[in-house]
């Protein structure tokens, strides 16, 4: 029996640059007790379609052009706002993507939690409080009574998402919309939250719409999948048939883009020949932050080496110290103690002047190509600056060199005068990579360079990095929280946990036979397309973080 039946829904945005057909002629239905996953890349309209059902898109510029959405005998799209409010939160509840920004930082979580009960069910505050505490405990918040009056910033990301889930469930809705509920979370936390959502959905026999960009994530949770592209559903069907026999070429593209399997053979040729001499050797490196009272050991006694011409993957969850490790190597933060030798030059004791000349040989690629490019510098400015600064080109000779760089990173020559905002995320990351390789470095620290990108774009950038490493004989420290990405690209990996190095070795060796308990946990948490060994998810470990003493 279908609880929600959407027919011919079109939502258009009237912007200055013309009409954007965010959702175009969309039809789908969700049954009681079943989960429909809507999968697509950013901008495909998957969130807009769900928000428009609840009247949550900004109008203007948005406008619902046509369609009906039959929910339990009422057309959501033609309902007056007053009655729609009765449905919001009470019958249809939403879990949003980013628990960091979606909870009100000025109100305690308890206050936010009980609101639906007070406004929909006319509960007394006392009664609402008791129910909220019981629900918080159900979603896995320990000592819920004591934490009821805490503020969102006192919870870790995973815990906030649990609060968000409790908030969605509190008025006993019949339809749950989960909009990328795990995208902002670490992989082990993601596994826990996915399990929690699946369990709650089963227990309460909820209908659920699960929005995700990641097919691997929805594989275990969805009964049906609808694949969206450019505002339209290109393919829909039962989960099994989408995975086993995808019909539409875009679905196949999405499936193929998910990094899976080991590093392609082509680039491992050099790998098998010999082990190269190390370019970077780190011994007992410590980078600590903080004052007398609270020391944060971001990097805690780490020793490792990076071989010339190899890619070393650094894997860990947020807060594990992997970025600090990368920055310490480049001396962007000064380590507290330990040795870093770069080509047999000790970096930690190097004078600023000598360091400056070495800087040219070491570059960095950052995670967020939106934030790391200067919005007031054109592609030419961005790429020419390091060349001119390091004296590798003069004003006269710089243009051909910039064009050559653009060829290297796959940017059209016509884009040379454009500014960052005119590019998509993937193209921006190409510019950022171009800037990093402009000065012909030997060593690059890539800090989560693909984690802000859509999966198909991610694949292209990974291939680009792979080609460049080979072409320019680069050595790379590749930092990522995503094990599948690291496996695809890296020769060796080190696993970091709470500042310490818990395991290192050849990628495939670790993959096949992880020794450390934490590595095993990480590997088992990866949502995977293949049916592997049954997952042993560790429920309450790792995510009991309390941020009260930031």
């Amino acid at each position: 029996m279908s609880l929600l039946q959407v027919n011919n829904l079109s939502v258009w945005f009237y912007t200055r640059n013309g009409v954007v057909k965010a959702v175009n002629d969309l039809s789908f239905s969700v049954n009681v007790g079943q989960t429909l996953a809507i999968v697509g890349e950013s901008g495909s309209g998957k969130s807009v379609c769900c928000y428009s059902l609840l009247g949550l898109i900004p109008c203007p510029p948005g406008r619902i052009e046509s369609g009906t959405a039959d929910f339990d005998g009422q057309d959501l799209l033609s309902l007056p706002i007053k009655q729609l409010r009765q449905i919001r939160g009470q019958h249809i509840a939403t879990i949003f993507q980013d628990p960091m920004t979606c909870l009100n930082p000025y109100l305690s979580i308890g206050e936010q939690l009980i609101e639906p009960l007070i406004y929909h069910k006319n509960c007394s505050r006392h009664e609402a409080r008791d129910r909220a505490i019981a629900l918080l405990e159900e979603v896995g918040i320990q000592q819920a009574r004591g934490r009821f009056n805490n503020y969102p910033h006192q919870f870790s990301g995973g815990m906030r998402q649990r609060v968000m889930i409790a908030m969605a469930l509190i008025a006993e809705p019949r339809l749950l919309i989960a909009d990328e509920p795990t995208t902002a979370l670490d992989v082990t936390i993601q596994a826990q939250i996915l399990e929690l959502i699946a369990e709650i959905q089963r227990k309460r026999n909820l209908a659920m719409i699960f929005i995700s960009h990641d097919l691997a994530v929805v594989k275990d949770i969805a009964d049906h999948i609808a694949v969206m592209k450019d505002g339209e559903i290109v393919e829909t069907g039962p989960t099994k048939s989408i995975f086993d026999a995808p019909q539409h070429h875009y679905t196949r593209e999405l499936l193929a883009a998910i990094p899976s399997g080991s590093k392609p053979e082509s680039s491992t040729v050099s790998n098998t020949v010999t082990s190269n001499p190390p370019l970077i050797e780190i011994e007992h490196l410590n980078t600590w932050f903080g004052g007398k009272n609270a020391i944060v050991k971001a990097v805690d006694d780490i020793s490792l080496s990076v071989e010339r011409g190899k890619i070393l993957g650094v894997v860990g969850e947020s807060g594990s110290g992997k970025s600090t490790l990368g920055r310490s190597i480049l001396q962007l933060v000064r380590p507290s103690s330990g040795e870093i030798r770069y080509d047999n030059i000790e970096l930690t004791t190097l004078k600023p002047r000598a360091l400056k000349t070495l800087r040219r040989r070491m570059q960095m690629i950052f995670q967020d190509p939106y934030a790391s490019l200067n919005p007031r510098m054109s592609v030419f400015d961005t790429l020419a600056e390091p060349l001119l600064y390091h004296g590798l080109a003069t004003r006269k000779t710089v243009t051909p060199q910039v064009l050559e760089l653009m060829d290297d990173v796959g940017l059209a020559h016509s884009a040379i005068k454009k500014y960052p905002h005119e590019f998509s995320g993937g193209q921006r990351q190409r510019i950022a990579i171009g800037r990093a390789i402009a000065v012909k470095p030997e060593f690059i620290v890539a800090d989560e360079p693909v984690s802000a990108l859509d999966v198909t774009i991610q694949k292209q950038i990974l291939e680009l990095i792979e080609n460049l490493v080979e072409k320019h004989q680069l050595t790379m420290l590749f930092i990522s929280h995503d094990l599948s990405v690291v496996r695809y690209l890296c020769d060796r990996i080190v696993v970091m946990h709470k500042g310490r190095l818990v395991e290192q070795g050849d990628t495939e060796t670790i993959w096949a036979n992880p020794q450390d308990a934490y590595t095993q946990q990480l590997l088992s948490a990866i949502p995977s397309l293949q049916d592997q060994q049954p997952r042993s998810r560790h429920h309450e470990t790792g995510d009991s973080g309390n941020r009260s003493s930031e």
Partner: protein
Amino acid sequence: MGRFILNRLLQAIPVLLVVITVTFFLVRLAPGGPFSAEKAVPPEVLKALEIKYQLDQPVIMQYFSYLGDLLQGDFGPSFKYPGRSVSELIFSGLPTTAELGIYALLISMLLGTAAGVVAALKPNSAQDYIPMSTAMIGICLPSFLLGPVLMLIFGIGLEWVPVSGWGNIPGDKILPALTLASGYTAYVARLSRGGMLEVMSQDYIRTARAKGLPEWVVVLKHGLRGGIIPVVAFAGPAFAGLLSGSFVVETIFQIPGLGRFYVQAAFNRDYTVIMGTTVFFATLIIVFNLLSDIAVAWLNPKLRGRQQGSIQSGANE
């Protein structure tokens, strides 16, 4: 928090010292003196006066002896009102000025915030343009123009309220408070509009709507708490500004407040009164800025529980 306040108070010392020093030498650089009047004073009397008030000594000596007195809380005697000390003069005018300032502050905060919130709810509509253009006029109109205009319309034309005075006839406090508040109201309206616009586009507002809360709860409970922060940050400096800037309004409406002493003292070269009032106002400004910053920190749960560390001041532009 205690450490933060202590730090700020320590920072105030050099600021005050600079204010004192600059004012002290500036007023003495201005031509004329406290005893140069239209009617010439006999030289021997002038001499006696100068000795009495230590004006015969080198300026640098006067400076240090003034600083010494100040440390003991002594603002010195007035040159123009014989027998009265500067402290007496300040505290005789302060209650009136403070009352006027508080009324104006309340008007500007309440009216300004309300107008800003209303405007922010429907940006770029009539609901936005009308209060905001009115606010723009409020900012542009100086009080020496607005005061007489209000007097003409509501005092003389409509005869709704008294034209001038303070506390003599019921209703005579309305026009001065409104006149003084106008510019600040307008500024608060613009601040709260900006704050609300920013907050209402946050993800957590969408969360609140998705919970099915009535719109007034979304706006007043979820929105206003964050949106009002710029207004709170401005409230301290605004109050200090209202107190120290009220002399125009006080002059127009014949109010015996502190501002008028200040202006008269400047005309009279009443050195100690100028100095005393300036130091007093500077202290007020510092204290109210600090109070604002504390209030802003308190509104933010992240900063509220924090023991140490710096709280950024967004108040002083």
